[in-house]
């Protein structure tokens, strides 16, 4: 395996964007970075800058307005990148399925690589989702 690919798998910098979730998943993403779960063990850093991010972690069912912001964030993030949709509403709309102003899933806006179920998704599931996303990143690299 190439050295860069190996490094890539050990340093996923995440960009977190909430496009309409109830906060449950967002606080769990933050909880995954704090002492009990400490995703920084795996090199995860919440970087907040799309230009330096590798993994875009999206929560929420997406509405027309946040979709615009999400699309621009996705375009700003340089390759290689993966998108993780956290929570039931980011995958399918979940409990917000019949709300008037939602698209029902992030995959209607940007291509999604990994879906994490749960409402709200637990930190364990989020860490698993990140690891799965990294495997996808490796496949994209041809490793």
């Amino acid at each position, binding site marked *: 395996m190439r050295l860069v690919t190996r*490094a*890539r798998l050990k*340093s996923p910098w995440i960009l977190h964007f909430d496009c309409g979730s109830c906060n449950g998943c967002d606080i769990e993403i933050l909880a995954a970075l704090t002492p009990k779960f*400490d995703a920084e*063990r795996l*090199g995860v850093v919440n970087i907040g800058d799309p230009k*330096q991010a590798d993994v875009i972690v999206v929560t929420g069912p997406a509405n027309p307005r946040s979709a615009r912001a999400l699309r621009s964030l996705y375009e700003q993030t*340089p*390759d290689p990148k993966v998108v993780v949709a956290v929570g039931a509403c980011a995958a399918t709309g979940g409990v917000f399925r019949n709300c008037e102003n939602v698209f029902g899933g992030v995959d209607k806006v940007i291509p999604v690589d990994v879906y994490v179920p749960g409402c709200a998704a637990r930190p364990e599931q989020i860490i698993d989702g990140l690891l799965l996303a990294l495997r996808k990143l490796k496949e994209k690299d041809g490793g």
Partner: protein
Amino acid sequence: MVSMETVFSAVALVAAPFAGGLLMGVDRKITARMQSRMGPPVLQPFYDVLKLWGKSPVITSRLQPILAFGYLGFSFLSVALLLFGGDLLSIVFTAALAEVCIVTVSMSAKSPYSYLGGRRELFCMLSTEPLMILSALSIYIVTRSFIVENVLTFEEPLLPLLPGAFIVTGIVLLIEMRKSPFDVSASSHAHQEIVRGVYTELSGYTMALVEVGHWIRTVLVLSIASIFWAPNILVGWGLALALLFMVILADNAFPRLSWQRMVKTSWALGFALIAANVLLLVVTGGATI
């Protein structure tokens, strides 16, 4: 004929970025443990930089790559000057040049975060540069020389004579490493009002270059701190690492202060410490002006 010392200096120069990366890794580990977390592996900074190197960059201005190389180059040059026994003042000025590069990078971008970060980086320079020069001056007062080689061969350790200047170097290290309370221009975790500050517009290999440059600058300041126990290089580096630990401790014990407070604190504390130190020297007869 190449002397042993030259070979040693060349090896040290090549090793400087690796040492810097390792120190950053240790720093992240200790910080994590202070926050009662496990923390990333010690080699994490190297993974980060390698990954950034392999990532496709977003170049927002044509100046960016040149200036990123400039930042790394000038940082390297300043360490080289130190290792090959150059002039303390020219080391300080070369280091400042590197800083000018990164300020220009962030100012040349359109992003307001980057612009504000650049402005604050200027204030960081404004706080560190006078302190570095004063530190060098106080070393001169004792050793009668700005040349590192002469300082290194000075017969007695500098620390008992210049405790103030040593603490001032610590303040410089605090600002240089972008640690709380003075992480105003950028912070490693980006939980800050101006997101990544000066780093906002950097990406891919330019970010990797700047990151390596940052390691080297940390090594530079630590080596200057190690000069304070010049006769024995091991004791000197022990002192420098103790300073690093104090900086990490300060990072975890303080919130970020505003840049106004940073300039005021560093100037007041720096000038007062150096002045008191020089006064002490004159009173005890350690030096004559």
